[in-house]
């Protein structure tokens, strides 16, 4: 039998681990170009598998120019994202995951229009390189992962009519490498995610572009913390995202500007019975950091996740 303290600690760890996912796997990119690089789904608990349904309503608030000036949007431009995320243990400390976003984007104004379709589908392979078997006082649990992003969401340069309404992704193949670190102390928890990725060039031939697009590298750093009580958790997370300029070679040619923005997220989660979790979160890209060359949005996300024990 486990001692009362140890049981509490186990439960606390368990709650924290699954709630952590709610914070770590969100990334909201510029609306013109779809979402940025994401971590699809990672099991940070001791479960065998997990499946999540996620709904996000995201509304564009402003465009930020490379020189730092902001332009507030007057017309509505919003996106609803229905995302299915799953992950499964494949061998002891190895796991694989998949994230499939389906989006509906609507825009009013001079060229009012809407579109629906898949965003960029992301697959990931994770390895728990730093297990937390003995509840070390400060050593975190660490999971490394390799992500692959597929350009199923179509880039704005491949938009059929050029208005970009049907652009729901960055539109580049990409490979990312990152790590998630988690730690908790009694009611409090902390987490970090560091990720770097390389997006690969692609050739585009249409009425607007005749040449190749070179997106370069990018990365993100997320730091978060939360307070747990009973079956609830209230958490906060800041995620800083950077992307290299997109260099266009051909006609037209342009060297581009780097893109930078930050997500500030507050999340309230509740652990249901039978290994299920619900949460509600608010993400605002206008609060932190020094955004540049991007589109800033504000989002609300509802999340439901079911897990299966080993």
């Amino acid at each position, binding site marked *: 039998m486990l001692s009362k303290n140890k049981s509490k600690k186990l439960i606390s760890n368990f709650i924290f681990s699954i709630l952590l996912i709610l914070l770590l796997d969100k990334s909201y990119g510029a609306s013109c170009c779809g979402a940025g690089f994401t971590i699809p789904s990672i099991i940070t608990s001791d479960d065998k598998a997990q499946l999540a349904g996620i709904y996000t309503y995201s509304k564009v608030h402003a465009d930020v120019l490379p020189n730092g000036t902001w332009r507030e949007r007057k017309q509505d431009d919003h996106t609803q994202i229905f995302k299915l995320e799953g992950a499964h243990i494949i061998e002891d400390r190895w796991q694989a995951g998949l994230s499939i976003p389906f989006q509906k984007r609507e825009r009013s104004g001079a060229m009012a229009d809407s579109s629906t379709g898949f965003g960029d589908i992301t697959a990931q392979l994770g390895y728990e390189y730093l297990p937390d078997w003995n509840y070390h006082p400060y050593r975190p649990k660490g999971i490394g992962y390799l992500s692959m992003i597929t350009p199923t969401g179509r880039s704005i340069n491949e938009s059929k009519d*050029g208005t970009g309404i049907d652009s729901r992704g960055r539109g580049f193949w990409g490979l990312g490498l990152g790590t998630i670190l988690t730690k908790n102390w009694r009611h409090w928890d902390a987490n970090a995610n560091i990720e770097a990725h390389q997006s690969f060039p692609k050739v585009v031939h249409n009425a607007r572009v005749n040449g190749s697009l070179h997106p370069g590298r990018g990365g993100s750093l997320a730091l978060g913390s939360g307070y747990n009580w009973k079956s609830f958790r209230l958490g906060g997370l800041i995620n800083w995202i950077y992307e290299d300029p997109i260099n266009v070679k051909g006609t037209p040619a342009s060297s581009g500007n780097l893109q930078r923005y930050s997500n500030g997220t507050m999340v309230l989660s509740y652990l249901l019975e039978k290994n299920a979790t619900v949460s509600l979160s608010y993400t605002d890209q206008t609060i932190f950091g020094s955004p540049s060359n991007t589109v800033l949005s504000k989002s609300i996300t509802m999340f439901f996740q079911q897990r299966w024990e080993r």
Partner: protein
Amino acid sequence: MKGFILLLSLLLGCAKPNYVSSEAERDRYAPSQNACPLYFSEERLCLSIKWSVYPTEETLGAFTMTFFAEENPQKPITPHLTPFVKLWMPSMGHGSSPVVITQTAEGMYLVSEVYFTMLGAWEIRFQLKNNTDVIEEQIQKINL
């Protein structure tokens, strides 16, 4: 330790929104009032443009472009090559929807359905084409 605190304060620093309306910056990239605002050496022609409807989030833009010889601005001349207009956002490396070009008179063209997919700094690229080959290109910046 000082470095860590500095890094933390930089990271956690709040964004400082510097809202500037596109109307306020419109004049910054207004078409030049020079005698020859855009010059195409291939045909030895100047090009001037005049907005009839300035593009905003709510409205599609339209402008007139007029080709003329520098020594006689009052007499429009139709170029031998085909005029073409392309909208391009260099900071993000993408274009926008195609415009409609209609010749209205000798050397004069109405460019309509001018739409920019987002606010920011754009380029209007004026091209002279021989079939699909761009022979010469001149760029006018516009800040929305």
